[in-house]
């Protein structure tokens, strides 16, 4: 397995975590603080553009020029290990580094933009960062510390059936770099198993998209919800909790579950948490002050009642 850092980490802010599930960020900070992971949140970091990129609005050069600026910030603060909370941030960072490292034409173009924008000091040089060695997803840090976290666990998850939703942009854009790959992703299941939960493992549509489809959620609502329904219906009666690693997926499944329940006339009894929220919960974090479950659409309280202290 690849080497996962636990210091010099730039904890990369995510637009959807900011406004939909801020508890994912506070939970990650909670775990990192407890585990002694050294990280920095940079107020000057701009957003990855991922949503806009996949709304077909951003061109690759604009996206990667903004990435280059963030890379320069990471280098300046000596926090070159970028750890994202969102799978799209993860894939966008990797793509930008690869493009900047291997495509001279694109690199020259981007450096030209930075120069004209008065940011010559932020120009990118080949090899400044490495897409395999400098970009990580929060779930990878948790995975690398899973035994430590598990031994600090204060909650009993054994009567909770946990299924996983592995984010596409973590698994499928760079499958070789994804721990447990794209064909049978297990990283979330393995973490859940380490916490003593009953793991659902495989279900139909396990690898399928959440259905958000970036613009599809808005421009093609029915199409988007059909894909979301595939996933939720496959889990009907199989799991109590669906574990997430991407705020966009979490939003799609958590916020639209009540909508689909109404449309399909079914009750799903499935609760959504980010893997960071679950880990923080296990370590004793407050559901409201750390996990931020008050921002969820599907109420989490019922599940919390089933999870007892050890």
């Amino acid at each position, binding site marked *: 397995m690849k080497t996962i850092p636990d210091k010099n980490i730039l904890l990369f802010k995510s637009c959807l975590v900011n406004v939909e599930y801020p508890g994912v960020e506070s939970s990650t900070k909670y775990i990192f603080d407890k585990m002694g992971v050294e990280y920095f949140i940079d107020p000057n970091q701009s957003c990855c553009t991922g949503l806009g990129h996949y709304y077909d609005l951003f061109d690759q050069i604009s996206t990667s020029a903004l990435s280059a600026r963030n890379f320069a910030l990471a280098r300046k603060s000596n926090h070159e290990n970028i750890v994202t909370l969102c799978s799209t941030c993860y894939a966008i960072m990797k793509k930008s580094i690869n493009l900047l490292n291997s495509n001279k034409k694109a690199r020259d173009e981007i450096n030209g933009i930075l120069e004209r924008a008065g940011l010559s000091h932020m120009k990118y040089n080949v090899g400044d960062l490495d897409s395999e060695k400098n970009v990580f997803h929060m779930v990878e840090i948790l995975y690398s510390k899973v035994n430590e976290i598990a031994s600090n666990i204060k909650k009993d998850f054994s009567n909770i059936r946990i299924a996983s939703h592995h984010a596409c942009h973590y698994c499928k854009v760079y*499958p070789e770099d994804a721990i447990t790959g794209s064909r049978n992703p297990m990283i979330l299941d393995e973490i859940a198993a380490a916490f003593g939960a009953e793991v659902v493992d495989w279900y*139909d549509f396990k690898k399928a998209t959440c259905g958000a489809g970036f613009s599809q959620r808005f421009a093609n609502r029915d199409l988007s919800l059909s894909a979301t329904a595939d996933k939720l219906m496959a889990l009907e009666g199989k799991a109590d909790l669906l574990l997430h690693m991407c705020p966009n997926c979490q939003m799609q499944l958590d916020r639209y579950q009540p909508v689909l329940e109404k449309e399909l006339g079914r009750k799903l009894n499935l609760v959504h948490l980010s893997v960071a929220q679950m880990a923080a919960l296990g370590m004793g974090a407050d559901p409201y002050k750390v996990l931020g479950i008050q921002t969820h659409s599907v109420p989490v309280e019922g599940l919390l009642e089933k999870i007892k202290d050890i």
Partner: protein
Amino acid sequence: MNNTKSKTLETQDIINKTRATKKQDSFSTKSGERVGVFICRCGGNISDTVNIQELKSSIDANFVGEFENLCSINCRRHIREEIIDQNLDRVVIAGCSPLTHLKTFQNYADPLNPYMVEMVNIREQCSWVHSDKEKATKKAISLVQAGVEKVKKAKALSKIISRTEKSAAIFGGGISGITAALSLANQGVKVTIIEKNPTIGGFMVKIGKVFSPEKLAEECSLCILNPIINDVINHKNIKIMTKTRLLRAGRRSSYFNLILEKDTSFVHEDRCIACGKCADVCPVEVPDEWNQKMTMRKAIYKPFSQAVPDVYTIDVENCIQCGKCEKVCNMDAIDFKLKSEIISLKSGSVVIATGHESYDLTKRPEYGYGRFDDVISQLDLARILGVNGPTLGKLQKISDGKVPERVVMIQCTGSRDEKTDGKRYCSKVCCMVALKHASIIKDKYPDTEVVICYTDLRTVGMYENYLRYVQDKGIKFIRGRPGEVTKINDKLVVRVEDTLQRKPMEIETDMVVLSEAIEPSEGTMELAKKLNVGLSQDLFIKEKHSKIKPANTDVERIFVCGTAQGPKDITDSVSQANAAAAKVSEQIKCGTEAEPPVAVIKNSLCSHCGKCIEICGFKAVYRDEEYISIDPMACRGCGACAGSCPEGAIEIKGLNDQELFAQMDGLLSDKKEGEVRILAFLDNVGYTAADTIGNNRVTYPESIRIIKIPSINRLMPEHITYAFDHGADGILLAEYPDECMLEAHKAKIQELSDYVASKGIASNKLRFYKAYAPHFRGLAKQFENFNQDMLAEKGK
């Protein structure tokens, strides 16, 4: 008639005479260098352009003669007579290309050592490529005189005969290994079959039925194989060693020293009568590999009823040594004190017939192998359909024992897949395997529907007949590569697009069969490493040349056959096995003659640094126990090792430095003021291309003077200096970019370029050219351009 006879006698007489004189050492280099030059008019081909009289009178040699057709049989007598009469000890033939007739003239000059014959090519390199008679004649004189100077420095060499011990070790006891073993044993070669499993027979005994393009039927594989296996067991020249693997190997000049380890099976094979009482009492049950783990066997077991050797064996890993079997054995055959043995085997040749492995289907988890009981592999299905299999030949679902209503086969599982853990290649047999199983199912269970999802049906050659035969039984084909196999309401579902109809679909089915790729086995790779045999990009054993040396590996006297070399069916495996056996036999029977030039190491100078081993792409250089040695059979005499040797311990026999310097001298010494001379050093392919220029009467400037070398690796900076110092205006080095010497070439080109630069010589005076035999016009163009550039330079 009489006349001829007397002539023959006469010739015989001369030969006898010369043999006598030979003994008096009159042909050694010391005896005075008496050179005879024989000029061929070639029926006008040469004499129409070259003024033979002028050429004849300009050559300084002990004898100069002209002949109409020097290659004709009666000239043989003339040449021999002159050699005797003139007491010649070396000969120059001025005529056609040595590629055409060197052997002929070496034979015609028979009393002389063949390496005392020099051929000067005044046809392809002079009369056929130049039209100006005067210039052509001048060039011919220069070429012939250079030949005379060169041959004066020639040294007599004897051919190197390599002998191979009359024994062979065959790794792998599958159909390929067995075939090669039998062929060799029948030719009197002592053969040892080394098999890692407790029994021989390989995949073929497992698969039940084999397909055949000719008979349009599925035949019983065991019935075909059993008689052959019996021949193997009973053959006095074959020894079978099961549960045995190679620990290490040493290479010697005529054999390999193989150190083998035979794992213990706690059973005295010679005492066991295979009664089976032991297995009855054994309390340990483990999944049975013979049935693809669909049934159980005991820890003491016989892999299958017709297993060879016909003895029980203990699976040491799983045995708990309870001793029950030992007590029950009447033959006293079981002994837990038996240890693994280390065996040393001296073997002239090695044949790698280690076969393949089936693709690990859990690497494509989207198809649900291991997740769903009724997703199985073709090999699993072969066992299920086998009458000696887990269901005694009945097609049953593993989950509930029912006959499936529908079977969906997924082709190319793991094959033709560039993704991680996938195989880029086509596994070649899976289309036929799927058809075979479809055919058997349709015969026995006409109500069961068989659907084959494929990307391309590759039933090449005669197998197309087989495809039609099976199609007629009513198989459904869907042209599309399925994305996943899932389970909905207890039914398997295959998601696939019917690409011909542009119809994505979900096919409900009872059973899914994955056509697993053929992949190189771990054992093969391990063996290759120990034998220093090269692997292909896809990690099979690499053949020396896929077209003309398909059974050779890159190491002399190590051969390969069967699926160890790449995916293939039984027919092709058997052909290749027979080819490998023929190649082994060829070396044993005839010995092999190595032709100079070859490299030779002077052991007294060698410091054992191993640089020569690294640089030799032909793997001719190897380290044996005491020395570094060069296998003359593998050596091409290219000279790369000699160039890399810091001690100067390697000599190239067959083209020594004195010859090279003398030839350069000769080609440059008559150069006039203002004239351009370009030396073209050509390897064999380059030389062939130059000949072809002549054959096609394409012209190029007279300034081009060609020197034949084994490889540009033969040239050292001192040769380059010598040429420039002696008047060369330019040097062209042309060579075929042989794959296995590419690195050495690059290094050589770098070395020579750097050297030229360091001497302050303009870089355009030393040129490199990749020669290809058919692209002779390219070479002619090179000659032309080089000459132009050098003329222009002179003009300045």
